[in-house]
């Protein structure tokens, strides 16, 4: 068995192009670097990580960056154990975690977490109390909300998910999530589950919303990049990259890159709001 198939969740991006284009200003610091940078954790971060890695590796083929998912819990755990250089999390690491692993936190973007339904679903607007009733199982038929006469299938994330943590805290005001809810393992899996199920409701990072799923307006506010940015949509969170201790070398340069103009462009393109 090749190593690749063992880490089936891992998304190894390796673009090895012989010709390197001219270095832009943001990419200049990577000129003299080489080696392997390992990143894992939050699944909301992956699109940004992938594109940043691609640009860096195109500019300097000597650098290899591997990106794995796993969720916020995995990100914090693996960086704390020294298994990866950067551990991403979609929630702020707890004081206990910061203390135990001597974590350094870098918040590089703001992201909303939006309830989503299948595009075929007629229900595209809910009040927060309706949302809470749906997730607790009190409201269990779409008919009660003006939709089809079918049971509501609730989808949620595993307990270590940062997306779940934020949605539960701000979207559901820490209300209960029905034990009958389906559990999926990543933002991507949530999206395909909802895209497949016309009677499902779940939640994903705003950056992941595309034509596959339809966002649900919450108390009249449609979750979009604009509404998250101007603060009218409240269910939002920071996206963090964590390192064990002060980052050095390639790790530091990678994190710095996320704050450059080029980095901010990628963050915006992927549907997040770059941190100021």
């Amino acid at each position, binding site marked *: 068995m090749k190593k690749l198939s063992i880490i089936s969740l891992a998304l190894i991006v390796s673009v090895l192009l012989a010709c390197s284009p001219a270095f832009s200003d943001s990419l200049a610091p990577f000129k003299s670097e080489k080696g392997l940078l390992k990143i894992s954790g939050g699944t909301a971060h992956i699109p940004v990580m992938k594109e940043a890695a691609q640009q860096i590796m195109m500019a300097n083929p000597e650098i290899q960056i591997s990106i794995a998912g*796993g*969720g916020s819990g*995995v990100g914090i*755990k693996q960086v704390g154990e020294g298994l990866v250089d950067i551990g991403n999390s979609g929630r702020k690491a707890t004081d206990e975690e910061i203390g135990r692993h001597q974590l350094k936190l870098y918040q590089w973007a703001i992201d909303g977490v939006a309830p989503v339904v299948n595009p075929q679903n007629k229900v595209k607007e809910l009040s927060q109390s309706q949302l809470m009733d749906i997730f607790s199982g009190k409201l269990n038929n779409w008919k009660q909300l003006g939709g089809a006469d079918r*049971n509501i299938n609730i989808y949620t994330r*595993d307990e270590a998910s940062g997306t779940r943590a934020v949605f539960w805290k701000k979207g559901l005001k820490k209300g209960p999530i*029905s034990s009958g809810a389906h559990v999926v*393992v990543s933002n991507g899996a949530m999206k395909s589950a909802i895209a*497949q199920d016309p009677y499902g409701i779940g939640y994903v990072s705003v950056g992941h919303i595309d034509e596959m799923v339809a966002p649900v307006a919450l108390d009249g506010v449609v979750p979009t990049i604009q509404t998250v940015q101007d603060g009218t949509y409240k269910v939002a969170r920071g996206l963090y990259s964590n390192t064990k201790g002060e980052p050095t070398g390639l790790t530091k340069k990678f994190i710095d890159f996320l704050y450059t103009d080029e980095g901010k462009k990628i963050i915006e393109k992927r549907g997040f709001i770059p941190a100021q």
Partner: protein
Amino acid sequence: MKRYRELIAERAFLLSALTSSAITVAILAFMVFMGLPLLKQGGLYQLLFKPWAPFQGSFGIYPMIIGTGAISLLSLLFAFPLSLGCSFLIGSIAPQSVSKWFRRLIELMTGIPTVIYGFVGVFLLVPIVRELFGSGSGLCILTAALVLGIMITPTMTLFFCDSFDRIPKAYLDAADALGASPVQKLLYVILPAAKHGMINGVILSLGRAVGDTLIALMLAGNSVRVAESVLEPARTLTAHIALVIAADYESPEFRSIFACGVVLYLFTMAVTFLVRYLTFSKDQTV
């Protein structure tokens, strides 16, 4: 010189046998050790019979044990008649040339990674189950059991075929001499004589169904409530481990998955011993 070499080879084999068996025992010891703090805190009873609600401090794996049992037994129910039919066809009904090809095909099927079954299930079977029964999401016990049943069918079929092949030719010749039709031969000669081998096949396939992670993770819906019907989602022990492994190392959630590991381990061990026992008792009687 030759004896010397033999001695070295013997010792090397002994060493590898010792190592692999020591690792097996060490894994169990490790899981028990890691799960111990939780067992001390809440006791085995709480772990085995309480629901899973980590935010309320309840870390029971009872729903997962039920989920595993329901899905794997139901898959056995689907796989058994299928395998029986396949093995009859290969073993006696079909002409030699057809059965040879069929067997090759089934051998090939045992090698398909389970993730592919899961993937195909998500896109083909889930919408059908959802619309056919008009309730739920289609991610449910039934879907997972169907796909799991298809997954274990090749294994079970091959076991059945093997035990058919082991029947002494004299028995078959005797049946032929008495003028038995192929079906009569099957029912009155082959089946009774192959019984032990078939039971082994069923038990080992059950072990495979219980141990599989991806199909249940992708198709069973992973909810933590004990399902009331086969159309409701459920979570298996293996899927549970896969879902909780992301939790913080120090948390009781994480500790509890070692208990899941112990339960799975003991189950697999029980299956192995059962197979041993059955094979042994067969050897005694023949």
